[in-house]
């Protein structure tokens, strides 16, 4: 959170200025005020157990939602899906670059690395498809995240098993909390819709389900990484803090750009 708020303080004056040209091709900062009501998507990391489970989520009705989503809701989904795609891009790259050095030294980790990688690749293509379908632009920082994630994967891979696992632990803590926050927001919408007696709609139900499934898989990765000695990494504290603040910064930027 520190990094995010520090960044925010530094950039706020610049962000206030309305971008003169189409905010469609250029990243837009001007809408941040209107999103305030949902705070940041990264704030929550409550345990999934406390999560409400609205009944309509399990309803089999294929009815469509009649009332359009509000502008704020659409904006929230727009940036949420963009961040998710960027995150999964990074995840696939991290595992890709860690795999070789790690499995060479620890052949027993090959199935685990492969399992985690293929889940990330699945997440990535899920969000790619969502971006195409819902006409969400990818983050403008795409090349930057590509380079950063590859480097992170490569460096922690070279540092050895514990560092690689500490990297996974740190990343998945942030990502898991991030998905958790999104799931909570969507569930609060669902609750609101139920209270008003509105049809939730297939689209929303599917989205909540997908996010929950992916969130659970990320948290599995987290447990597996801890099981493989993430906490034994030296210097654990520094690595953990460094990577986690990197994730927070990247999420914050990708929500906007």
């Amino acid at each position, binding site marked *: 959170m520190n990094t995010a708020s520090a960044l925010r303080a530094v950039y706020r004056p610049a962000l206030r200025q309305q971008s003169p040209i189409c*905010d469609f091709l250029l990243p837009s900062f001007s809408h941040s005020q209107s999103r305030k009501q949902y705070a940041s998507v990264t704030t929550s990391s409550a345990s999934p157990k406390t999560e409400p489970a609205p009944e309509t989520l399990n309803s089999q009705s294929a009815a469509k939602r009649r009332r359009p989503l509000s502008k704020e809701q659409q904006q929230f989904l727009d940036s949420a899906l963009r961040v998710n795609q960027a995150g999964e891009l990074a995840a696939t790259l991290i595992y890709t670059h860690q795999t070789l050095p790690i499995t060479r030294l620890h052949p027993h980790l090959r199935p685990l690395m492969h399992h985690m990688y293929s889940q990330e690749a699945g997440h990535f293509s899920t969000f790619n498809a969502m971006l195409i379908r819902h006409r969400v632009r990818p983050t403008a920082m795409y090349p930057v995240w*590509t380079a950063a994630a590859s480097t992170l994967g490569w460096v922690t891979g070279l540092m050895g098993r514990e560092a690689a696992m500490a990297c996974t632990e740190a990343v998945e803590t942030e990502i898991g909390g991030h998905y958790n926050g999104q799931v909570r927001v969507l569930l609060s919408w669902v609750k609101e819709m139920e209270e008003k007696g509105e049809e939730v709609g297939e689209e929303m139900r599917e989205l909540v389900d997908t996010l929950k499934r992916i969130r659970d898989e990320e948290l599995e990765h987290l447990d597996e990484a801890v099981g493989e000695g993430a906490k034994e990494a030296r210097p654990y504290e520094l690595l953990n803090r460094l990577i986690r603040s990197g994730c927070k910064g990247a999420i914050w930027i990708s929500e906007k750009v």
Partner: protein
Amino acid sequence: MVNSKPCHAALKPSSCVRSKPCRRLYHSYEHERPPPFAPTESRILSAALSHVPTHGFATAALIQGARDAGYLDVSTNLFPTGPFSIVNYHLVTQRLALAKDAPSTNDTANNISENIRTLALRRLHANKPIIHRWQEALALLTTPAHLPTSLRELALLSDEFLFLAGSTDVTSTWYTNRAGLAVIYASAELYMTTDMSKDFVETEEFLTRRLAEGEKVKGLVGGVGAWAGMQAGGLVDGLRSKGIWI
């Protein structure tokens, strides 16, 4: 004056296309998008557009349009951007019209380039009835006050082409593709204003040529990236084969 009051309420714009462009949003399939113009607004502007061939993109066309729609001349005051609102109306409605009979992306999924060409051509041909007045519109579009709206509309058009053509690109080339296509379309539109050929075949050739050139450049850019990646990969492999663990 008294009569213009109800107009005020009726003309309350439903859209954000006026001066402050709205943001692009998550696109849901579960409901219709709200129409970009309020009914009255739409009636006056479409009537005004039909007077453009004779009056040009000018206040006169707007006044005629208001009269046709049964409003007083004074109601044109409700279009603060004056004749530009006719230009904008034309751009927005023609962009949205593209979706109505877009090429089916299912059976032609592998030919996105051809789909783009078809869509761009269809959009260019929608300018036919007013092409002799289009340079006036371009003058309005490029005045500093309207430039943000114009560029945004161009960007939205470019996005519409790619979306309807079935583009599945969500990497960093998303931006370059859209910018490149916008430039190509805008130059074809300008070319068309001086095209005297029958049924604008020269414009069509111009568009086709530009798009083909664009493809080549795109291939080149992609190629450079792939090449750099290959070199880096090769280097890493080479060092690894020398026993260095990287």
